[in-house]
Structures are given as C-alpha cells and as structure tokens.
C-alpha cells in the first residue's frame, strides 16, 4: 500500500515510469535504443542518404565497400548504403499501421467474444481457428494478386491476418476478468454491454493486448519482408529490405555486401521490437517467462 496522502501519478508520469522500468534492464535498454535508432533513421533518412536511391550507373556495378560507397553498390550500380537506410521506411509504416488495425479489430472482437460467450463465441472462435489454419502467405498472395500491391491493400490485409492471434489473447484476458464481481456488479446495476466493455473490461485487458500487439508487429515485419522478397510487396525501384535481399541473393557468393546490409537492417529491427515488447511486458507486470514463486 502506498502512502494514502500521496497523490497518485498522472498518466504521463506513469508512461515515463514504464519507460524507466523498461530501460533499467540491459535487454530492454538495448531494444529501446535499437527501436529508437530505426524509427529516427526512417524519419531522417531522406535527408541523410548520400546518393539518389534510384540513380543507376552501369560503370559502378558491384563496387566493394569503400570510402565513397560505404556499403558498396548493387548489380545496377546503386548505392547500397542509401538504399539500406531508406529501405525500412515503407516496412515500418505498413507494419505499424497494420498492427494498429490488428490490435483494434482483434482486441474488440476478442473482448466481445469473451463477454458474450455462448454460441456466438463458439461460432466466431471456430471461424478464427479456421483462418488460423490457412497458411497466411498463401492467402496474402491471393489477396495481393487480386487487388494489387498498393499500401492501401497491404495494410488492411496484414492487419486482418495478424489480428487473429490477438483475438485469442484478448478473449483469454477477458475470461480472466469476466467472472470477477466488479463485472457482475456492473451487470446488476444494468450497464449496457458496450459500457461494460469500455469501462470495466478494457482497462483490465489493455496491457495484455498492447504487449501482444507489440509482438505481432515484429512478426508482421517479417511477413511483409517475405512478401517483398517474393516480389509481392513493394515494387521496384522503391528501396525495401525484402526486395533488396531478393535482388542481391543470386550474387551473394561474390557481392556479399549487397545482401548483408539489408539483412542486418531487417534483423536488428525485429530484434529491437522483440526486446522492447518483452521489456514492455515485464514493466507492466505481464511476464511470460517468470517461474513459479516457490
């Protein structure tokens, strides 16, 4: 029990406290630093890139890394460094908004199913299970080939496919609180379902859903890069890590630099998000790795 006379913290103070707790662990600190680095790079890279990312120069094909071209050049003579720092922009944007969509529909549907229960819950969850059993990449390829590869298609499609897992988590978290007396109390007072979801359930499942959303973000990033790698993500010449890896992989044996740079970019970002999400979960007290208390 905290001192009763002390005023409780404001929301911004709470956010700062959570960030502080996250940064107090080495893994959390590393994750945060990587994530902040990537986000700021995505924001600033158009001003930082030394060369035009689409400038082709056949005379400079497959140059080794040098003081002129830090990460070398690719098979069309484009500067790999410029393309690498620019390559995360679209991936981050698409997956960030995709995660928000996934969080929104997955969270709401999960809470709704957990609350109403019964037949509706059964039917909805079986449909979700059915979707979970479809290999997502096949379904994505189908959608993309029918509707095209624009961002307007990719964001909702990814958001839909990665929201299914969130439905399950949100439903489970709702089940934890649904039997508590404060929900029964709200029902007995005659509150509507919407009011119960918004006021009673959401504040108690918010943390679990947010952490799950953060994990989904890193998975979605991998998924989006896979699509690009297969040629269904971003169209050339837009720089994108998945696409860059795909283009340069044939020349890997003698021009490793063209493939290493985007790989490092992609994997550090995923690791960064993962570490941050883990630290976030620990800071909120939802730790999936703690042992039994004995």
């Amino acid at each position, binding site marked *: *029990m905290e001192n009763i006379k002390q005023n*409780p913290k404001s929301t911004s103070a709470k956010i700062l406290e959570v960030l502080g707790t996250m940064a107090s662990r080495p893994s959390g600190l590393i994750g945060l630093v990587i994530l902040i680095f990537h986000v700021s790079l995505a924001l600033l890279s158009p001003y930082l890139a030394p060369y035009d990312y689409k400038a082709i120069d056949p005379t400079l094909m497959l140059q080794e890394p040098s003081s002129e071209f830090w990460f070398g050049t690719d098979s069309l003579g484009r500067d790999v460094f410029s393309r690498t720092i620019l390559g995360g922009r679209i991936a981050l944007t698409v997956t960030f908004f995709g995660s928000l969509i996934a969080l929104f529909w997955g969270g709401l549907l999960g809470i709704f199913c957990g609350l109403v229960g019964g037949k509706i819950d059964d039917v909805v969850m079986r449909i979700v299970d059915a979707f979970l059993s479809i290999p997502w990449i096949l379904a994505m390829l189908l959608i993309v080939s029918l509707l095209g590869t624009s961002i307007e298609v990719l964001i909702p499609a990814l958001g839909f496919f990665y929201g299914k897992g969130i439905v399950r988590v949100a439903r489970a978290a709702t089940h934890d609180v649904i039997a*508590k*007396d404060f929900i029964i*109390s709200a029902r*007995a007072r*005659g509150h509507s379902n919407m009011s119960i979801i918004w*006021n009673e359930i959401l*504040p108690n499942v918010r943390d679990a859903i947010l952490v799950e959303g953060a994990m989904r973000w890193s998975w979605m990033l991998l998924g989006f890069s896979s699509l690009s790698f297969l040629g269904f993500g971003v169209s050339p010449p837009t720089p994108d890590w998945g696409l860059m890896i795909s283009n340069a992989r044939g020349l890997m044996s003698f021009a490793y630099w063209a493939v290493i740079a985007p790989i490092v970019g992609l994997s550090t970002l995923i690791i960064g998000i993962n570490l941050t999400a883990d630290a976030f979960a620990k800071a909120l007290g939802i730790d999936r790795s703690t042992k039994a208390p004995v």
Partner: protein
Amino acid sequence: MENVVQKINNLSIGFRSQKGEEISILKNITTEIKRGETVGIVGESGSGKSTLALAMMGYIKHGLFTTSGECTFNSNDLLKMDGRALEKIRGRKIAMIPQNAGQALTPNLKIGYQIDEALRLHTDLNKIDRDKKISELLNKVRLPSPETMALRYPHELSGGQQQRVAVAMALAGTPELLLLDEPTTGLDVTTQAHVLELLKFIAKDTGTSMVYVSHDLGAIAQVSDRIIVMYAGEIVLDGPVRSVLKNPIHPYTFGLLKSIPKLSLAGLPHSMPGSQPQPGTIKKGCSFFDRCSLSEEKCKLNSPQLEYLEELKTSVRCFKHKELIETKNKENVITRNDKKVQINEILNLTDVSISYAKQKLLDQILNRFTDDNPTVKGINVDINKGETIALVGESGSGKSTILKSIAGLLKTKDGNIKFGKEKILQPDVKHRNPNDLRAIQLIFQNPDESLNPNHTVEQIIAQPLRLYFGMSGDELKKNIIDILEKVRLGEFYMTRYPRQLSGGEKQRVAVARAFAAKPDIILCDEVTSALDVSVQAAVLNLLQQLKEDFGTTYIFVSHDLAVVRAISDRVAVLYQGRLCEIGPSKNVYQTPSHPYTEVLLGAVLEPDPDIKPKLVAEDIVEDRPPEKGCSFQGRCPKVIGDICKNETPPWIKADNGNLIRCHLSLEELRK
C-alpha cells in the same frame, strides 16, 4: 528427552525495500513450544503469523531474510541448516497442514498413493506394512471405510474429508511438531467443528506438539493450551488460553475480543478504530499506539518490551497492562437503535424455484419448467421495508443463489418476485426498468474483486450516479464527496485506486457505491467474511448506522451465525435450497428450533474455551437435495422414519412466532 521441542530466540525476519531500507516483518520473536503442547497463534492478516509458522519449519519465503535470532528444533538451528538436513526434518519431525487441502493434494493421484508417498519418504516400512499403515492413518482421522477411501481421487472427497486426508499425510512421519496454517478456514461450520475435534483428539492421542495458526479466535480457543497474539510482526500477548481470552491484558486483544460478535448477545460488537500499520511505518513507540484507547505520551516515544507476569503466567507487551488487569472483559454490545418495522411489504418471494439444470429445447420453446428437483425450491418470504433479514446456511444451501435471483442475475424458473406489493420484477436484469435496477443494489463478499482495480474511487462511485441520475460535473463531484463522508472516508480518497486502500476501506467504498444509487433494498452477500475481525465490526456498525439514517432494507447472506445475530431482525435458515425455519432473530436462536438450526448453532465456535461446540449431526456433505420429503432427512439427528423421507414437512408455528418446517411437534423440538 528435552521438554521443549522448539525454541525461538529473538527472531527477526525482514525484506529490503526498493529504497534499500531494511523492513521487518517479524520483530524479536522469542517463545518456545513445549512437548505435547498446542499453541495457537492468532492475529489479523499481515500480522506475520504465517511467516512465523513457516520459519518454524526452517522455511523463509523468497525475498525475505533473517536479520537476527535463531529458531531451534531439538537444539539445532533450523535457519542455519542446509537443504539436505532440513529434508530429514521436514515431514518427518515437523509436518505442516495447509489451509486448503483441496489445493495441497495432487488432483491426479489417488489418496492412498499420496499417503504412501509420504510414508516412503519418511519411514522405512515395506510395502505391506505401508498399506496397513495407510488404513490405520485413514481410520485415525475418522474417514469412513479406509480401504475404498484410499482408492479415491481428491476431487471425489468433500472439503472436510480432504482436510482429514491432509492430517493423515502429516501424521505419516509421526512428527513431533505439527504446524497448522488456518486448517479450518475454508470449511463449513459443522465440518469445522468436527475437524477441530479430530485435531484435539490427535494432539492428546499422539502427544504431538501443535502450532495452530488462525485469525479465528473461536477455533483457537477450542484447541489451544496457550495463545500467542501477534500484532504488526510482534508478539503482544503470550499466555494460557484462559488468561488470554478471559482476562486479556493487552489493549489489542481486549479490543479484538470485543469486536467479535457473540451468539449469546444480540447487538453489534464494538469496533476498533483504524487498521494495522504496514510493515516499516512504525519507527518508534508502540505499534498499537494509533488505535489504543489507553495510550499516552510515553507509548509514542518508547517501544514496550515483552514482560513476563508470574501470577498470570503471561507475557505482555504493554506499559499499561495493569489497568487492564482490573477491568475484566465485561461483555457488552452496542444496542441497535431500530425503528419499529412496519408491516409494509417491499419484496415478496412467492414459490421461487431456481434451477441450474439446462432445459431441453422443447421445454424452452413452450416455456415449461421441468426440473423436479431444482437447486432452490418453494421459497416464500415477505420482506418488510426497513428490516434486515438474514439468509443463513452452509455452502450449497442456495442462499447466494436466491440473492442472485433477486438481483436479476439468475432467472427464476418458477414463482415470482414482487417489488413493492404488486409489481412483479422481471426475472432478467436486462429487461428491468431503470427504477427497479436502482432500487436493488448488491454488495459483495470480497472488495478486491468487486472493485475494478483500474478505476479510482471517484470513478467507482460515479458509475451509479451517472447511470441512474445522469449526474455530471460539479454536481457529480459534490455527491461523491457526500457519499464518501457518509461511509466515513475523506475527500482525498477520490483519487485513490483500490490497491492503495486497506480491506476495510475497500469495503466502505463498495458500500458507498451501493448507497450512491439511493436504493430501497441492499443485498449483502457475505459482506464481512473476507474482512479481519476488527474491521468486520466497523463495517457492521457502518451498515447499521446507514440503515438507521436511510431506512434501507437489507437482505443479508452469511454463514456466520454470530454476525447474523448481531445485525439482523429476522433470520431464514436454509438447507439444500429449502427453507427450514424463519422467524425473528431472537427466537431463532432459542428453542424450539428446527433440527438443522440446532446443528448449526451447536457448531458455532465462541472465543471461550469453556463453551464447547455440540457435535450432533453427522459430518457429511450432500450434493443434491433429496427428491421428496424433508430436505434435512439425510443428516437429521432427530429423524423419525419414513414420514421424513416421503412427505414434505408442514410449517408449524411456534408460540413465539417462529415458523418451523418439521414433522416433529413443538414439544419434541424443544427437547
């Protein structure tokens, strides 16, 4: 052999706070357990009694450490032993019986196998001898037909039987010291009385020393030779059971005993102000200073030491104990100041039946009610405006089920509930109009569960005000402050979260939320069961005060007959979802009464070693009401014969206005 089994010398256990401060949970505990002695350790939650019990086994919870002292068992310091040495002692020399045996037994292993496991670990017997020993042990804890019992799984046993199995397992290693951590807390009153009786028998029979940890002075009084009272991590009183309970010379024990409702006295118990301090908040002076009525300046500055008084054989930690030696523990209560209840019915339950059975589709369509043997059946009660009616019974008696139906959370299958004489309440809360919803409010057992942990007190109390009265802005705030004042909480509580409040404060917030709706009827579901005794008294007093101020009607569900006696005007006794007896509370507590009421009253434990519980009925648990006849036929000590099995007993009216449902005549019931 030494006469002392365990000796605890100046033991302090603490933890380090985030700021690096050392905070003590146990402070300078010095005591000893003699051979064959039963010692009761009593204290409220957070007093350190469980930590002490665990330390007696040489176990210190993760995050805690010993700051000073030792805990010796047969002259070896348990706290300095390594794991191997402790293994030889735990289970074999010192055994522990946990609070919830249902959780302590492995669910997928048979009872016999689990006892065998304990025997294999702690004895050198071979297989045949072990099998014999299992039967012997099960016999000793008085479980019926030990051979078949050994083949059962834990979930096939009732709570009392599970607790008996735990006792049998603890006895497997023939321990010298038995530690019991709230072993009867989760059990029904009648089962509790039986288990305590068994423990007493075992203590005498085996000569084992026992340490009985509990918050319940009633249970402690029955089994202990000596009582240790703990407060805020310290021993405040340590002496023979009679001396402690009959003439408590520490103000805390004095107040504690006064705050326990007694069966023999109508009226509310006195409450103690405040609550137990959190560890680390008392830097100097007596830890009971804030709540003590005798305190003076020196109590604030100096910490009293434990002082041994030869003539009473009692140790006490108080400067002013001499004043309390003179004042005997005079029993008095606060008389309730009820307005005379008018015959002005506010709620009628007519032939209410509630069933948990699933209806078949055809019956659902035709709206037919087919369950012949519903969980709750034929409840007829008229409740008058401004009265407090209590529903009592053991778990499974249907008392909470009836409450849920009144609240509209559980549909009645038959019969109806009328509100204010003629208006029939909709069975489903979703179809009730706002005024009916507002009129009936619920207060729950556990405020930890009934208050949303992510809402501030302001948000919690605002909910009914917004919903029913559409308040907002300054008006809303003003009303919240008003209500908080009525439950004796200050304005600054508005911004607190439930986790920042003590148990009693949380329950006050829950009471405030219910009263915010300006209800006509408040349904109280075991509202004091989760609270400490001193807090319970305060909440009971608050409820009574609010009732006197607002004329609210309470329907009070409880398993605790003493609490019911203190607060209620009328009592309805339920068994297996059927009414047994109903009448003014002072009459229900006298003869003639229904055999079940007698059984319940007999099993109540009073904090007085000279009042023994009467064990009349068999300790069995029925999970379904009988198809026909009297609901209590299976356990009734006064059962007549076939008439009880076949015919539903009639209501007979006793001369004092009590209604009793029994085939026996009043004269026979009076015996």
